[in-house]
């Protein structure tokens, strides 16, 4: 992927979304899942928080208020992205122009899905997260900056190091296609398969 532009810094307005245990059905309700493509999911993203029962914007919801209507970063509660494995939740966040969610912990499948779609999930301490929540509320449009290269977040006076495993960080920066990259290891996969005896060879009968 040498021709792709490296993504090293994410910068934008951050919106506070401090609820704990926001599950992927809150991020992308099931009624938007009856689809065979990845597209058209922006309206479904956080739909029940953004819209009321008759589809009107909820004016009190943070992403419906200026300046957070332009937010590209979310500061989120503990265990964000729990529940169903649906990658639609990540596709939807990306289509809503969200580049990063900063939080203390993320569900594993959601974390891996995010990496595949260029959504950065920097992990910080509860104390730092709370400081960033405060900043995002008070900043009135001041930006938060996430540097993937040296794993730092800066926001006004705040400057902290975040946690992100190396493979995820590298993948986000390079914008890699994991499937194509892995196929470069085809010989190793064939070698592994050659070590499997008949008893370890799954053959599902149609």
């Amino acid at each position, binding site marked *: 992927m040498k021709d792709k532009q490296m993504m090293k810094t994410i910068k934008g307005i951050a919106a506070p979304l401090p609820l704990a245990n926001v599950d992927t059905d809150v991020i992308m309700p099931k009624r938007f899942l009856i689809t065979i493509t990845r597209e058209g999911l922006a309206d479904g993203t956080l739909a029940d928080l953004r819209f009321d029962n008759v589809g009107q914007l909820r004016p009190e919801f943070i992403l419906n208020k200026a300046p957070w209507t332009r937010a590209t970063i979310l500061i989120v509660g503990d*265990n964000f992205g729990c529940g*169903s494995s*649906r990658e639609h939740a990540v596709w939807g966040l990306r289509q809503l122009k969200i580049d990063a969610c900063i939080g203390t912990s993320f569900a594993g499948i959601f974390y891996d899905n995010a990496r595949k779609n260029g959504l950065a999930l920097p992990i910080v301490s509860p104390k730092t997260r709370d400081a960033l929540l405060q900043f995002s509320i008070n900043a009135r449009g001041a930006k938060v900056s996430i540097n993937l290269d040296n794993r730092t977040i800066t926001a006004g006076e705040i400057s902290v190091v975040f946690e992100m495993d190396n493979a995820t960080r590298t993948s986000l920066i390079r914008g890699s296609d994991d499937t194509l990259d892995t196929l470069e290891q085809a010989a190793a996969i064939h070698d592994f398969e050659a070590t499997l005896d008949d008893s370890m060879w799954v053959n599902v009968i149609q």
Partner: protein
Amino acid sequence: MSRTLYDKLVDAHKVCNLPDGDMLIYVDFHIMNEYTSPQAFSGLSAKRLDVWRSEAHLAVVDHVNATRDSKPHDAASKLLIDNLEANCIKHGIALYGLGDPRQGIEHVVVPEQGLVVPGMLIACGDSHTTTYGAYGALGFGIGTSEVEHVLATQTLRYKRMKTMRVIVEGDTAPGVTAKDIIMKVVHVVRAGGGNGYAVEFAGSAIRDLDMAGRMTVCNMAVELGARAALIAADEITEAALKGHPHTGQFAFKGENWVSDSEAVFDEEITISGANIEPLITWGTSPDQSVPITANVPSKLDYVSPKAKAALERSLKYMGLTEGQSAQSIKIDTAFIGSCTNSRIEDLREAAKILQGRQVAEGVEAIVVPGSAMTRIKAEAEGLRDVFEAAGFEWRPEAGCSMCLAMNDDIAMDGERVASSTNRNFEGRQGRGARTHLMSPAMVAAAAVSGHLADVRDFK
């Protein structure tokens, strides 16, 4: 060097290390459903890639199909079902589609068909793939991009997890089921407390469970964030595998699929089996549960303003008053089904409570057997008659149904459901729907009482 069962499973499937710090692991068996696979297949087409080894995959229709009838109930679900069939034909992948005698909920069907044996690595685009840990197999949920990755390479990029052992020691009391054990674990470890961990369940209360109970435990381990759940293979596992169509074909011998006695875990938690009571959830996260004999929490139970606010939000959504007794919660609907609790053993337990009793006035009660084979077995045992005589609606087709309401079984705004399922998130069973999780027998007890009730009061 002593190793945990988890480490043995990862080591046995490691293809190679990758330069970025991940490793490549080999997926023995991959299961797909109609709703998380379409974009994986279109990804293959867009990149002009073939399926690496088509006989290592199985596709099942279960999430969006109606359970009243074997025909799709609307055009949207038909699109997903037809699309899966077309993709399977194109790539030569086995499909248990609508009307197939092997069809059902993926995590019910796979063990039923003998497709899981100790030592396997199984991936599936569904979070409840942790179920297979009950067999000493490493099962975990993946996203759609990873489904594409498995289809194209038969591998996944993987990071070794930390390990946690949850020991449930001592006999549980009568009326306490595997569902109560795992709900207790989720309550103690909390939702998210298992993020980054592979959890092994051990202790006498786990060893005493049958395979159905072990599957219930491993299934819901994902609710604490565990990416994998495991129970060591033993004589109960071996007995359960006897006579299954595929188990002679893949035996995965040559390794003892248990943790070494000296193996060290990163975390260890012990829970007393004797202290577990039948539980119900009162809130909107699976860890928000209390014993059926207790009360819904009140603000006095919490110190931090954040926790008080979270309680208030949950209670508001659930339409409950703080401190009200669990048994005073009246229900509109009783639902027995899902990959957590729709096996023949679950139906038998619920039927024991329903025998000679009637569903309370005003309660709609539905049971969706987990698979076509489960349904046929249950009918042969007379369970259908018991459910129907009590006033339950017996669904002829299997599927996830009202567990996540992706078909036409949707709870209405404000509707309160006693549910044998796995998640009580806001909107899970329908927009504004209120879910109380519990064991299938407890759902039956609630159905006949009209309110949440203690299964131990039913002799």
